């Protein structure tokens, strides 16, 4: 087949890009070569629309061992321990085939982590679905949850946290973002940079099949009515093989046989081989007849584009082949020498003794297009003016119950009880808290992790929204007693060729960058998922932020459940009663316009650091950050988790009960402390100029506010814990 412009366009390339390829090559590429270009130049691999803006993110820091650009980011957690982590999207495949799409998303991110020599120790996920009324939502949710569980449970890695949201903007385009943390000795980290000439290129893992061909280009396409026809581009996961691959790789990594290693993820053998050679400034020669294939008569085109799962590519030291093969034989995995490194700086592919591709690697990587797409600043929407009349028919207890049972606030136990969250025996904070916490095996340390997104805030004002998510992630770390260290981001957006979507992307990234820089909470890894759009309907801008923090002594970890009757409850941070974009405004007042709450990074940092100091000094008995739903929802969750009530005092400087209790001002926490410690705590808070007030005292049962509210824990539990189970069983 002779390649022409039409074929190139069918491969997802623009006409101008095809022209550029021909210019660079000084000839028309053959079909296999076109496959290489289409894979490497598409948005998913080349970051051509996002690169320019991602450069602005702060990625360095004292504790950063490896920032973006590797399989995953790496941070130093003291002694010789390091944590490898990353979040990645698998949105498009999960919409087409929820079980396999989500499962292979989890499998892919775990490979990214153990490729670097780390044993995965925790999984998290952020999943977004369409309206709960939409006909597909239930099946998609069930499929995605079973897929995530099916893969993670079989691998024996605990799934310790996550978030689930519903919004009609995801009706035709759900989001499945999976995050993994792994533990590695900081002197034994493996990278993907090839080095040395004539080193054997080893293929290990599963055989290559026809599944997932064009997966990466599908990820960068817009959906239409015929999307179901794309089912064959979804990969099929085999967690059992991945478990064997994990053990075999870690066994081989125990000594120094490996020069470079990379998992075959998006664009399979193509991107893994090209990236390793490119980083090492080398060439690579592959003989595709040596690649273990699952199906008969696969062509070079298919072999290079297959996204069959559970495969790795290794550049090995000479002379280590036998030893390595023995390990993979023991684990019943394929092992094949399929090529070698060369000095040509080209990728040369042979098949049935013919050279079927010959392309300078630079053309596939550095020469990939980079776009400065159109965008413009989003104006801050005008504030709504609410008055007494808006609230006059409302009762605090009804509003509270309604919010607690809202799909985006209610307990997600139906989901996480399907995930094994205790395997490995180190989970000390299970899902349902501010962050999942696992111990660093065999030490006194623990690692906290959480995932957050705030699509409504980002949609209303991307810059503020971007900042807010980073702050919320930071607060989640603080609330469990962890020092926030670094984040990973998964940037889910619509079509970057549209000015509105590109603007959302640029300003969210700016916001993320600004907050993470100020909080010294750098971005060490991540991915971008554009084209989340179906039939011209894009999703709300949804960056998800995965945060990681360190607890030096796990015995000092804090959870949100109230601990002791008689203890005092303080609100840290100032409550102004910002109602716009709150769940109260959106769901109760049905007002979806207005700006998100303002972010004050100085207060955010100061409040957080002071709370962390109080925790380290042992003054805090339970803590929870105030996020969606405001003070009363946060108090209710602490009550539910600790099975205790609160007697709430009439707040000082109260403008209005609804604004006070349901406003979503940022930078706030609720903490439980002992009466006897109050003087010392006051001293520390005042010394650090942290605004606080005492809001109540813990009681046996109800949440009570004189003349205004009296509600039992059982009622709260019923509102909060039954909605999702009932929804899914109908």
């Amino acid at each position, binding site marked *: 087949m002779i390649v022409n412009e039409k074929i190139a366009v069918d491969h997802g390339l623009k006409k101008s890009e095809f022209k550029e390829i021909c210019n660079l090559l000084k000839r028309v590429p053959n079909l296999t070569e076109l496959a290489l270009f289409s894979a490497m130049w598409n948005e998913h691999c080349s970051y051509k629309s996002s690169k320019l803006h991602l450069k602005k993110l702060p990625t360095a820091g004292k504790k950063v061992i490896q920032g973006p650009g590797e399989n995953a980011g790496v941070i130093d957690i003291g002694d010789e321990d390091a944590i490898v982590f990353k979040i990645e999207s698998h949105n498009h495949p999960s919409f087409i085939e929820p079980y396999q799409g989500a499962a292979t998303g989890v499998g892919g991110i775990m490979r990214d982590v153990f490729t670097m020599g780390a044993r995965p120790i925790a999984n998290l996920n952020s999943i977004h679905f369409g309206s709960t009324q939409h006909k597909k939502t239930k099946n998609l949710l069930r499929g995605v949850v079973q897929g995530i569980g099916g893969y993670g*449970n*079989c691998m024996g890695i605990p799934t310790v946290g996550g978030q689930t949201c519903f919004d009609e903007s995801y009706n035709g385009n759900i989001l499945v973002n999976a995050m993994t943390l792994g533990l590695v000795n900081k002197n034994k980290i493996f990278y993907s940079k090839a080095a040395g000439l004539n080193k054997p290129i080893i293929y290990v893992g599963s055989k290559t099949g026809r599944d997932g061909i064009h997966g990466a280009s599908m990820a960068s396409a817009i959906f239409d009515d015929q999307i179901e026809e794309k089912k064959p581009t979804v990969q099929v996961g085999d967690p059992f093989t991945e478990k*064997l691959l994990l053990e075999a790789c870690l066994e081989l990594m125990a000594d120094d046989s490996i020069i470079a290693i990379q998992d075959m993820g998006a664009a399979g053998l193509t991107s893994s081989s090209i990236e390793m050679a490119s980083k090492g400034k080398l060439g690579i020669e592959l003989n595709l007849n040596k690649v273990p294939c699952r199906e008969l008569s696969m062509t070079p085109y298919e072999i290079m584009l297959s996204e069959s799962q559970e495969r790795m590519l290794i550049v090995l030291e000479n002379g280590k082949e036998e030893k390595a093969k023995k390990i993979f034989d023991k684990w019943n995995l394929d092992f094949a020498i399929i090529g070698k490194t060369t000095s040509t700086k080209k990728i040369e592919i042979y098949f049935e003794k013919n050279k079927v591709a010959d392309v300078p690697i630079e053309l596939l990587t550095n020469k990939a297009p980079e776009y400065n797409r159109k965008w413009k600043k989003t104006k801050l929407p005008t504030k709504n003016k609410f008055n007494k009349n808006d609230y006059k028919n409302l009762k605090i207890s009804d509003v509270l119950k309604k919010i607690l049972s809202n799909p985006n606030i209610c307990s997600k136990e139906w989901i996480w009880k399907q*995930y094994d969250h*205790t*395997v490995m*025996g180190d989970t000390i904070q299970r899902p349902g808290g501010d962050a999942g916490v696992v111990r660093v095996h065999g030490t006194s340390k623990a690692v906290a992790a959480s995932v957050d997104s705030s699509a409504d805030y980002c949609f209303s004002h991307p810059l503020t929204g971007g900042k807010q998510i980073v702050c919320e992630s930071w607060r989640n770390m603080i609330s469990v007693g962890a020092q926030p260290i670094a984040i990973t981001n998964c940037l889910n957006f619509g079509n970057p060729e549209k000015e509105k979507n590109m603007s959302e992307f640029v300003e969210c990234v700016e916001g993320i960058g600004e907050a993470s820089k100020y909080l010294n909470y750098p971005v060490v890894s991540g991915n971008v998922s554009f084209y989340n759009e179906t039939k011209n309907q894009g999703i709300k801008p949804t960056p998800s932020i995965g945060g990681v923090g360190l607890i030096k002594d796990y015995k000092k970890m804090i959870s949100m459940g109230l601990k002791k009757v008689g203890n005092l409850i303080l609100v840290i941070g100032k409550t102004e009663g910002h109602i716009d974009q709150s769940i109260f405004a959106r769901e109760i007042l049905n007002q979806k316009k207005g700006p998100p709450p303002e972010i004050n990074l100085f207060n955010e940092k100061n409040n957080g650091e002071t709370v962390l100091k109080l925790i380290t000094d042992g003054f805090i008995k339970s803590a929870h950050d105030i996020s969606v739903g405001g003070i009363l929802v946060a108090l209710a969750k602490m009550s539910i988790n600790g099975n205790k009530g609160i007697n709430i005092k009439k707040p000082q400087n109260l403008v209005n009960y609804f604004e006070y209790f349901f406003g979503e001002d940022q930078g706030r926490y609720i903490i439980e402390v002992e009466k006897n410690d109050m003087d010392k705590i006051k001293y520390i808070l005042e010394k650090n100029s942290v605004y606080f007030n005492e809001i109540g005292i813990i009681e046996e049962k109800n949440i009570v506010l004189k003349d205004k509210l009296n509600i039992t824990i059982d009622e709260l539990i019923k509102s909060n814990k039954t909605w999702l189970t009932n929804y899914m069983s109908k």
Partner: protein
Amino acid sequence: MNSSVIIFPGSNCDRDMDVALKKFGFNNQMIWHNDVDLPKSDLVVLPGGFSYGDYLRCGSIAAKSKIIESVINFINSGGLVLGICNGFQILIETGSLPGALLRNKYLEFICKNVFVKINNQKNSYFKSIKKDILELHIAHNEGNYFCTQDEIKQIEDNNQIALCYSNEQGEIDEKYNPNGSLKNIAGIFNKKKNVLGMMPHPERMIDKYLSGDDGSIFFETLLNNIN
């Protein structure tokens, strides 16, 4: 006391079990499924996980492993063999324990704390145990115990029911049955009571910073009884 934990391809609670056994004083060794001989052991454990990916039927492929013949000989000579979760499924597939483990009643994986009542203390596992209701943890997709009417009669006549799902007070009722198991069965013995298969994971509950430490009672009792 010497123990051996067998690793099958896909086992994933092998390390957790190793940690727990060592914590309570066992001298533990990890044994590869392809080995033929068992080292001298006072206890052999088949750990949880997804041996062979649970493909075909949970535990069925692992039950054909090389090491299994030695395990069966060990059982026949009166040795103690404990199977947790997937280990329980494997023991059933080898014919060492009666019945079958079906998919959970609601067709969902379940991961949560449960209470179990110890039904029979006249054996090396539970003799002199200081509590007869334990809070343990389950994490499985196929834990729905089932057998024929004839089999259940024999099991009851021989007092082979080891553990039943219950509430905190030890009341056994369908309400406390997480997976649809016949008679709330969470664990059973063989006739001689030297083989115990159970779905709950005591190895995940061995210190108070985890979700509880009733698993410690399980291991302490077992070690004392072997001594």
